[in-house]
């Protein structure tokens, strides 16, 4: 689309204004089908993403369902104050951040490495089989994943503990020992998600011009050299985009998974914001308090995305917007 710009004339401002108004109308009319096409998307965002934000109001109220949003009493920052002054708040925030750190530093690189390895597999047949095998865990719910690991690591006849005893070691209480919670968490995340995470990287690897590899081979580059100098630079943009998106969900670790692993013995390391919202907020019908916590989480996420995006741009990358 070419845009026609009319330089403003200092002599006849009134006439000009009406002229440019007409111009705008004309342009809208010319692109009318584009506007029609964007309408469904726009409506979707307005109805399902922006209007619901109205509900955030209740985090500043003592919300009572029978009084409705407008009828409930305003209490200002009470629920936020309560959250920040909760004795466990710092601990819960730390646990959330640590799990998030594990996600970023341990889980995040794994799909990339896996994708690079898959890419090196020769022969479409094996490649497909391996890919499918890696995807399957993604389709199991967390309940199943956690149950499977429960059966494997329980002290009452779990196979891992039986093996430990067989090789002359002591039994390990994986389920109740706080220091085993984080390893179990991240192993389960990797097992379930790593294969699925490779999809997008494999797609972008497939888009690389084969000529580049040919040229590199001519220059005598080995497999590793090719990966290092061609494949990785080519998918760098995708990696950074996904990284920024991941940062956005900084405090959003998936309630279900952690809640299933949580018990009285490992609460000090396992209670995260999501599970806290459930016990303190929803189980007791404290909608305002829960909403306040959710609000807090979203703001942190927003700030993180903007910060990382800015850093990425400073480093000369594209960023997400």
């Amino acid at each position: 689309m070419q845009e026609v710009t009319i330089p403003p004339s200092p002599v006849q401002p009134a006439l000009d204004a009406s002229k440019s108004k007409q111009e705008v109308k004309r342009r809208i009319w010319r692109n009318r089908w584009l506007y029609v096409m964007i309408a469904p998307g726009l409506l979707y965002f307005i109805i399902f993403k922006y209007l619901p934000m109205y509900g955030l109001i209740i985090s500043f109220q003592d919300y009572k369902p029978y009084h409705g949003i407008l009828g409930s009493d305003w209490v200002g920052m009470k629920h936020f104050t309560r959250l920040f002054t909760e004795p466990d708040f710092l601990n819960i925030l730390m646990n959330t951040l640590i799990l998030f750190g594990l996600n970023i530093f341990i889980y995040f690189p794994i799909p990339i490495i896996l994708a690079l390895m898959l890419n090196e597999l020769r022969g479409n047949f094996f490649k497909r089989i391996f890919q499918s095998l890696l995807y399957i865990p993604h389709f199991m719910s967390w309940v199943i994943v956690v149950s499977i690991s429960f059966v494997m690591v329980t002290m009452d006849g779990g196979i891992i503990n039986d093996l430990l005893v067989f090789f002359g070691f002591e039994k390990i209480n994986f389920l109740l020992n706080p220091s085993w919670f984080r390893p179990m968490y991240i192993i389960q995340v990797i097992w379930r998600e790593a294969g699925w995470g490779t999809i997008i990287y494999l797609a972008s690897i497939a888009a690389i011009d084969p000529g580049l590899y040919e040229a590199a081979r001519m220059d005598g580059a080995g497999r590793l050299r090719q990966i290092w100098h061609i494949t990785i630079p080519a998918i760098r943009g995708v990696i950074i985009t996904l990284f920024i998106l991941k940062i956005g969900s900084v405090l959003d670790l998936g309630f279900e998974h952690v809640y299933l692993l949580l018990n009285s013995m490992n609460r000090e390391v396992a209670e995260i914001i999501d599970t806290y919202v459930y016990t303190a907020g929803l189980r007791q019908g404290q909608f305002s308090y829960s909403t306040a916590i959710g609000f807090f989480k979203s703001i942190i996420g927003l700030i993180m995305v903007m910060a990382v995006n800015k850093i990425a741009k400073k480093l000369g990358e594209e960023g997400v917007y």
Partner: protein
Amino acid sequence: MKKKSFSIMLAVLLTLSVMLTACSGGNDKAAPATGGDAAKGAESDAPMEIKIMLPLNTSETPPDTIKKELEKLTNTKLTYQFFPADTYEEKLNSSFATSSLPQVTYLKNQTTFIQMKDAIKDGQFWEIGPYLNEFPNLSKLKPEILNNTKVDGKLYSLYIGRPLARQGIIYRKDWADKLNLSAPANVDELFEMAKAFTEQDPDGNNVKDTTGVVDRNELTYGAFKTISSWFGTPNGWGEKDGQLQPEFTFQEYIDTMDFFKKLRDNGYMNQDFAATSKTDAVKMFTSGKAGLYIGGSMQDIDSLNKDLIKNVPDAVLDTHSMVAGPDGKFAQWMIPGYNNVVLFPKGAVKDEAELKKILAFFDKMMTPEVSNLMFWGIEGVHYTVEDGKAKPTDDKELIEREVKGYKDSVIGEAETNGMYEPYNVLPGRIRAEELLLENVKVGVPDPTAPLDSATFTEKGVELQQIITDATYKYMYGQIDKAGFEKEVENWKKRGGDKIIEEYNAAYKK
């Protein structure tokens, strides 16, 4: 998995419900008009129209089979609004926010009832206490249970009854017989039984692969609270020096924790019980690896037996509940006696006359004829009568589809509404039914059930977590008595003191 935070989902719901208010506003205005028609109609003996909202515990809305019979028997025209139990709380809240609750509103359980107390105090529902005497059947409802459902001393609801104390032991009778053990008469014998089941190879396979007690990550409905009450711990709260104090400040609570610690340390119970779900605990028991299933409901013996004999065909189960404490006394903790309650919103029931007509419907529901229809279904189709008891048909799916939806809404219990008792075949189950009656004789009620504490409503659950965690840590030997008492102090500091104060103030009234 990227799960949107609860609050956002909630916000979506709320907004949608607010948006819908505008639409449903018109209906609200129309509602009194229909009500008026119904009232006029009632004068000429036309059927009374009643709208009923209730949770549904099956996947499908039941067909009209039962409803049609019910309408004939009670001369009503009923509109049942079934909503799935999983999301029933949301439905309650959003209907409430848009004041579109129907004339008869069932809650979901005790928890939703506690949440609704604010609204009840706010005058959103009819007080029915003063009218009950006018209805011969409704006035049969048990006063002690009605008392537990009172809000600020006034009665607003009818209750759906549940046996007061269903908990006890379900154990492997074949193992006990083989080892020459009888049902444990006191907590020491219980410990001995767990020990014998673990160490003396009761399944006779020459491998030490059995456990005594199987328990799960649940202090109330698992084994802990039941054994605790045998030790003499008060039910939730107890009187000490003329004051109500929480159960965990009593010595008996500590004794119970020591009992569990000893069981675990010696390997007489499953080692991971703090992380074992109910499903996993049941699986351990029904696979024939454990001998004692404690807590829960003794009536579960039917389903446990069914699954167990699939794995161990010659297993025999039995129930038991009379276990004396160290001082030789019997005790059983009791629930407040109701499973759910039904309320009558002022927004939908416009005047006293209409309320009385609705209560008259419930009065009829409490006759044996109607309650049998709703609880058991149609005689000859869904059940048959044997020895004056109801024996459900073998077609479980038919009952599930056509009867279950109504079954959970029957007011009162067999003693008050005169419906048939179940016809049981399994000896352990028959014994369980006898034990239920025995349990009540030594039953210990929770003195705070009819009392109110604002702090408890606000953060009781959150605070209880501190005690629950500390209890498990003590049983696993991670903290000692001093450490446990420190956690109790922590509980008090963070709001417990206020709860004690508020309950005692309400108790003295």
